[in-house]
């Protein structure tokens, strides 16, 4: 039911009109007035027929896909400068290499489309939470600010990549995600930051190449373990497990 609803929404957005707007006189190729050969084949690229303006030339579907992934990302909290205002408006700055490496766990939501051949592109966002190995504290105007131990990560960006079939049931994807991420401290004890979470001055950029292995569960679903490493912050490694729904079977390219 969800797929039907999604398909309906896409169909409305893309202006795909139902074929029954035209009264067909025959199902024999060469005599059809409303549709052309290959209509209804689910993936068949429909070609314009010279001199036949009445034929429905809309594609049946597009190689769009949406993905959700459970991820684990390492964050070098010791390299981040957390800076904000405390509850009494005293600014603080925390840069403590002793915070070390932390892990956050969360969700990636992605939407993409095969653009041409094996190449695809899309948008991605990440929301993840984790804990610091030790409490983070800062001094603001002589007062101790306790930032607690909870770490959050919010990221937005885009990605481009290409897919290489491995077998009829699997393919490899190589992609690069580019965007901005905002690691911040949560569950602040004793202070309230002007922004929540209490993050760095501005989001930091990330460039994260990924290797994704897709296993097809069927014509429209795949599951994919993947891994990536941020080249701008090499200690930031991501591993995850993704589930994808493909509007066009196999994205139209097995």
């Amino acid at each position, binding site marked *: 039911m969800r797929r039907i609803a999604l398909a309906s929404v896409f169909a409305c957005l893309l202006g795909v009109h139902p074929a029954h707007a035209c009264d067909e006189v025959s199902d024999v*190729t060469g005599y059809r007035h409303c549709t052309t050969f290959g209509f209804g084949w*689910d993936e068949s690229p429909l070609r314009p027929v010279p001199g036949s303006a009445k034929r429905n030339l809309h594609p049946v579907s597009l190689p769009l896909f949406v993905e959700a992934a459970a991820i684990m990302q390492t964050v070098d909290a010791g390299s981040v400068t957390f800076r904000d205002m405390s509850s009494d408006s005293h600014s603080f700055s925390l840069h403590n290499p002793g915070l070390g490496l932390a892990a956050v766990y969360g969700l990636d939501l992605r939407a993409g489309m095969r653009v041409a051949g094996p190449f695809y592109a899309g948008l991605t966002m990440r929301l993840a939470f984790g804990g610091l190995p030790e409490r983070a504290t800062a001094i603001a105007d002589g007062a101790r600010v306790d930032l607690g131990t909870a770490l959050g990560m919010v990221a937005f960006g885009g990605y481009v990549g290409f897919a290489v079939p491995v077998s009829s049931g699997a393919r490899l994807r190589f992609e690069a995600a580019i965007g901005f991420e905002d690691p911040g401290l949560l569950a602040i004890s004793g202070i309230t930051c002007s922004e929540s979470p209490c993050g760095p001055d501005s989001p930091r950029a990330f460039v994260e190449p990924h290797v994704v292995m897709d296993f097809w569960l069927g014509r429209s679903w795949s599951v994919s373990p993947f891994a990536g490493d941020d080249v701008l912050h090499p200690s930031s490694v991501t591993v995850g497990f993704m589930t994808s729904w493909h509007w066009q079977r196999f994205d139209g390219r*097995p």
Partner: protein
Amino acid sequence: MVCLTLGCGPALPYRPGFLLEEPVVQPGKPLGAAAVRRVGCLDVRMALACSAAVPADFPLVAFTLGNRCDASVAVDFTRLRITGQMGGAVGDAPFTLLLFDPAHEVHTALLGSRATAREVLEYDVSPREATHRISEVCIDLGGFAEGSEQEAPVCLTRPAHACSS
């Protein structure tokens, strides 16, 4: 009936072998008017058909395809080799039938994983007046789809006045 059973839509996945299990003899149809064959990933059902839009003498072949694989399959109807046999002319060599495609719309198409498709095509001979004498339509599926192997053509028997009511 096949179309209704299959759903003829992208929502229902094709069950491998379904078309091959369909009876090739149907009520009201002559023996040999339909045949099934497996071609690589495809299950193919071929049956002589009639259409009110087409003169009764011109042979129509309805192709129903089911993709049994989890990958798309390229299907090329233009590579089918169709031959005919004239009725009442024992010993005559078979002659080539030509696809009727006035708009040049038949092209290599992609059938999705576990998808189905149906196309009805007309095959003619020159001169066109000779079409009413075609008693047998033979279809060589070599090159039709990936994985096609060289096999004996499938022959469909076409009785005289097959589409006359």
